[in-house]
Structure formats: structure tokens, C-alpha cells
């Protein structure tokens, strides 16, 4: 992985979807009145005949997508994650997940990455989608992973939910990093703590690992881009290593039903008796923001929050190490 500040890319998903569509005539693109925001203005410009405006009608859009998939198409459905999951949940359950159809639901703007208030924050989307049989749930960390998503999910036999950061996408991984739907990957090896992160929290997890490492606490960082089906082998290998005294999860999502729950269930069923801390939204809606940075700090999703969680859980004495803020210039990204 790279060191922060990270360079940024624009529209890595949108460009990758166009590339897929050039090779695959069965790829359709549906948009719920958020075409530019979900990067599929690129698709619309090149493949207008395969682009469908669903309008502000998510229930109908999901129902149509299911029927199109029954007829041999691979529909990619785009809107914000919060609208993609809460509003048409019954439609996704009955018209897509139950018949196990290859609809790809692409939800942008995960968790508290938006200042748009609780109505716009997808803070339970992973939990909702994870509860549906047949659904694959993906939460990628950076542009290198994002641009692999369209081709990677195209041939999954059943439905896939992907949550994607909107706007400026950091490049965290080296360009040869390979995203796999059946693998979590150990990004940093450590001995004392196993820290699992998904999506936007990977950058903060890496920063926390560095800060704690400087104080003699060795933290492994495991990137979990696929929450379901979870790579339980990698999770258990990391969580049950003999030297590990603490397992931590970090997700830009409620601590109920997402990555933290998935790891907890896996550990409990395997009898891994290690303490667990879940970093994420603590069963709350997130209010009062001009920007996402404020929300990440206020609601405990910052690098400092991860460091403090680990420091306290390990019973370390003294104050936790301060986290140097890496200044991000124009065209750069650093975690909160």
C-alpha cells in the first residue's frame, strides 16, 4: 500500500463500467435521478440506448431490473446507497434476491461520508443487504479496487450490492492489487491486535496501525472488501493467532449488522474467545454537519477513535498516541 496523503481519482467506477459495457452487450445501466453523482453519465454518453432513467422511483426501478435480469440482461442499478436499500427493500427481497437474479445494485455515498443529514446517510445498508439470502455485499476501499468492481461482479450468478464512495476516490493500494470476491487480505502484518476494516475505514485503520506501532503496539490490518460471503478463513486466522489479544472492526456503518457483526458471529461460532471492539456508528443517526470530516470525528469513526479504542481495550497506561494529521493538498486524500 501507499503512504498518505493518497492521490485521488475521479470516476474510477464510471469509467470501468463503460469498459465493461464495451465488451458486454448484456450490460444495462439504470439510474434513479442521480446519474452524474453515480458516475454513469459516462455510460449514458456512450451507450444511451442501454441507459434507462428510472427517475425518483426506486421501487419500480428494482422491480424492472429484476425482470430485465430474468430476460438475460445484467442490469447495474445506481442511486445513493441509502435510497438503494431502505426505500425498495421489499422489492429487492422479492423481485431480486429471492429469485437470485444477477442485478447489481450500486449504492454511492456510504455511511456518514455525506453532510446530507440522516436522510442521505447509508448507515444500515450493509446490515439490510447482508440479511437477504443470495446477496453478495461489497464495500471497497479505494480506486484500485473500485475500478475492478464492474468486471468482477458482472458474472456473479446472483445479486450484488456494492457501496461506493462518491466523488474523490483515494488510491491506497499499489496498481497491481487484485480485488477478489472470496478473499479478505492482510494489508499490514501485526502481532497484538487484529484490526478488520472495510471501505472508507481502511485508510484510517492503516493510520491507526502506524501510530500504535510507533508506541510498541503491533496491529495487523485486514481489508475486508466483501462482507458477505465473508472470508471466514482469513478472519479466523487473523483473530485466533496466538499472540493476538484484541480484535477490532472498523466500518463506516452502524456497528449493528455490518462488518463488526459479521466478524463477531464468525468468532463466536468458532469459539475464538478474544475480546472484540467495534468501531462504527453506535446505534445512532448522525446529525449536524457541514462536512463529512466533522461527522467522522464526532461519531467515532476517526483514526484517533480507532487508536483510543485499542489503547483502552488493551489497558495501556498513559494517554494514547496522538495521531498526526497528514495534510492533504488539492487532489489528495487523507483519512480523518
Amino acid at each position, binding site marked *: 500500500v501507499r503512504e498518505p496523503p493518497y492521490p485521488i481519482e475521479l470516476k474510477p467506477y464510471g469509467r470501468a463500467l463503460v469498459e465493461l459495457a464495451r465488451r458486454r452487450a448484456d450490460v444495462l445501466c439504470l439510474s434513479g435521478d442521480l446519474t452524474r453523482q453515480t458516475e454513469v453519465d459516462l455510460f449514458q454518453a456512450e451507450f444511451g440506448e442501454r441507459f434507462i432513467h428510472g*427517475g425518483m422511483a426506486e421501487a419500480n426501478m428494482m*422491480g424492472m431490473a429484476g*425482470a430485465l435480469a430474468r430476460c438475460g440482461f445484467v442490469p447495474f442499478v445506481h442511486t445513493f446507497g441509502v435510497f438503494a436499500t431502505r426505500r425498495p427493500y421489499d*422489492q429487492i427481497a*422479492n423481485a431480486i434476491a*429471492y429469485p437470485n437474479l444477477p442485478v447489481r445494485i450500486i449504492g454511492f455515498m456510504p455511511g456518514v461520508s455525506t453532510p446530507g443529514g440522516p436522510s442521505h446517510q447509508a448507515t444500515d445498508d450493509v446490515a439490510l443487504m447482508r440479511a437477504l439470502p443470495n446477496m453478495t455485499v461489497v464495500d471497497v476501499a479505494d480506486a484500485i479496487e473500485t475500478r475492478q468492481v464492474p468486471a468482477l461482479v458482472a458474472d456473479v450468478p446472483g445479486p450484488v450490492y456494492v457501496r461506493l464512495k462518491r466523488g474523490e476516490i483515494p488510491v491506497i493500494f499499489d496498481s497491481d492489487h487484485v480485488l477478489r470476491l472470496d478473499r479478505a487480505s492482510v494489508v499490514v502484518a501485526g502481532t497484538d491486535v487484529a484490526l478488520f476494516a472495510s471501505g472508507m475505514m481502511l485508510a484510517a485503520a492503516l493510520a491507526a496501525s502506524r501510530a500504535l506501532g510507533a508506541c510498541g503496539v503491533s496491529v495487523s490490518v485486514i481489508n475486508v472488501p466483501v462482507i458477505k460471503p465473508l472470508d471466514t478463513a482469513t478472519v479466523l486466522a487473523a483473530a485466533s493467532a496466538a499472540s493476538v489479544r484484541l480484535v477490532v472492526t472498523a466500518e463506516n456503518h452502524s456497528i449493528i449488522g455490518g462488518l463488526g457483526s459479521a466478524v463477531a458471529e464468525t468468532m463466536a461460532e468458532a469459539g475464538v474467545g478474544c475480546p472484540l471492539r467495534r468501531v462504527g456508528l453506535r446505534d445512532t443517526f448522525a446529525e449536524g454537519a457541514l462536512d463529512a470530516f466533522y461527522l467522522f470525528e464526532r461519531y467515532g469513526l476517526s483514526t484517533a477513535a480507532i487508536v483510543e479504542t485499542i489503547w483502552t481495550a488493551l489497558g495501556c497506561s498513559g494517554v494514547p498516541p496522538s495521531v498526526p494529521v497528514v495534510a492533504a493538498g488539492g487532489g489528495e486524500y487523507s483519512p480523518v
Partner: protein
Amino acid sequence: MRVMSETLDPRELALRIRLRAVRMVAPQGFGYLGQALSSAEQVAAVFGAARPGVDRIVCSPGHYIIGPFAAAAELGLVSEGDVSGYGQNGSVFEAIGTERSPVVDYTCGSLGQGLSAALGFALADRFHGSDARIFAMVSDGELEEGQVWEAALFAAHHRLDRLVVLLDANNSQVDGPVDSITTLEPIADKWSAFGWRVFDIDGHDVAGVSGALRAAGAERERPSVLVCRTSTRHGLDCLPPDADGHFIKLPPSLAAAAVSELTGKLEALRA
């Protein structure tokens, strides 16, 4: 969908759907018989109009699947033995339609979703350059679901003229008459205002329903809707006046009377 190429007089098929539905519901002593009674002519007309292997049938309200099942049994599309398991443990002929339900191309027990599926089929056919028709059975109670109107807007905007909705306006829902719970009228004007071609017809006049389906098939600008005015008690005089149309109770004595009545009507029709 599969439809037998040989045709059955739609009046006779409607009668036989009622009789078959009575026999399917009788073992449990209760069930969605009212839905079969109100939609029998619509089902008979659709099975007469849909081209085998080309056109699609959507049964939006899963509770109505008894009608297509009964028609399929009468037309020899499924075996009598299979359909006799209707509503029983382990049968694919579940009382409320599921993904395993045979006979139709789409059904769903969560109401108000079928029209969106019909739109997806229509779009897919358009992408494929096919002129296949989509026959979508929808119930008036479903009009209380917002998704139906989302779909109605979309279908008209995209001029999905191969789509025809058979709206079973039987004025029945779980809590009572639809018009005592929500004012849907003027139903025809609503669809018309949404950009649909509307046929407001007697849903128990099977020739009228078939004729409207033909006229809708000739329409090349708009999707069509047949607002079929019906009753959940139609064609079965032995039902008590207070029968709950959504979920009719059919104890053995009443079932026997119903079989007798419908058998007599069938013999009279054939005479």
C-alpha cells in the same frame, strides 16, 4: 409461458376455472376462491389471447394465482394431480404465488410489484426487437401501493404499447370493500390521466374482455388497461351473502353445493 394451442370456448373455460378453484380450495375449507370468481373471465380471456412461448403473463397479486393454476389444469398444461396439491404442505402450487409457481412468468405475494416486472419484460422485449405482448393481472387493492403508480408513469412515458393490464376491480380487500377504505375512483380517469388507453368494462363479460384485449393489441402508442368491473361472488349463487370475498370459507356442505351448481351450469352451457 406455455399455452395449449387448441382453444377452449372462453365462456366454458371461465366456468371450469370456477369449478376447478372450488375443488382446489375445498380440501382446506377456505382460501382465495373469491379471487378466482372475480377474475375467471379475465384469466380465460388471457389464456385465449396469449401466444404460447411468445407472450408473457404476469399475475401481480400472488393471491390470484389460483385462477391461472385452475386454467392451466383445465387446459392440460399441468396435471390434475399436481394442482390437487394446491395450498398443501410441500406443493409447488402454493396458495400465494412464489418463485416456484408454474404457469405464469411472474407473480409475487407482496402486492403492487407485478406491474414493474411487466415493464421490465416489455423493456427486454423492446431491446430484443420482439413484439411479444405482456398481460399483467393487477387488482384494485394494489392501487393503494405507490409502486403501481411509479410503474404506470414509467410505462406511459416509454410508450410500452405491448403491455396490457387487466385490473380486477372487485372492490374487495382484507379489511372490507375497497371503497370503504380508500377512494380509488375515478379509476379509469386516473389511468387515462397517466397516459394509458383505458377500457372500462364488465369484467364478467368474457367476450367483452377478449375484445378489449384485441383492441389493446392494436394500440401502438400507449399501454392499455382494462378496468374490469367484477364481484368476488360472481357465478356462484350458493355462496352466503356475507361471504368474505378475500378469503372465502368453504365447509364441505357448501363445497358440495358449489360443485353441484357449477357442474349443472357447465352441462347447461354444453347442451
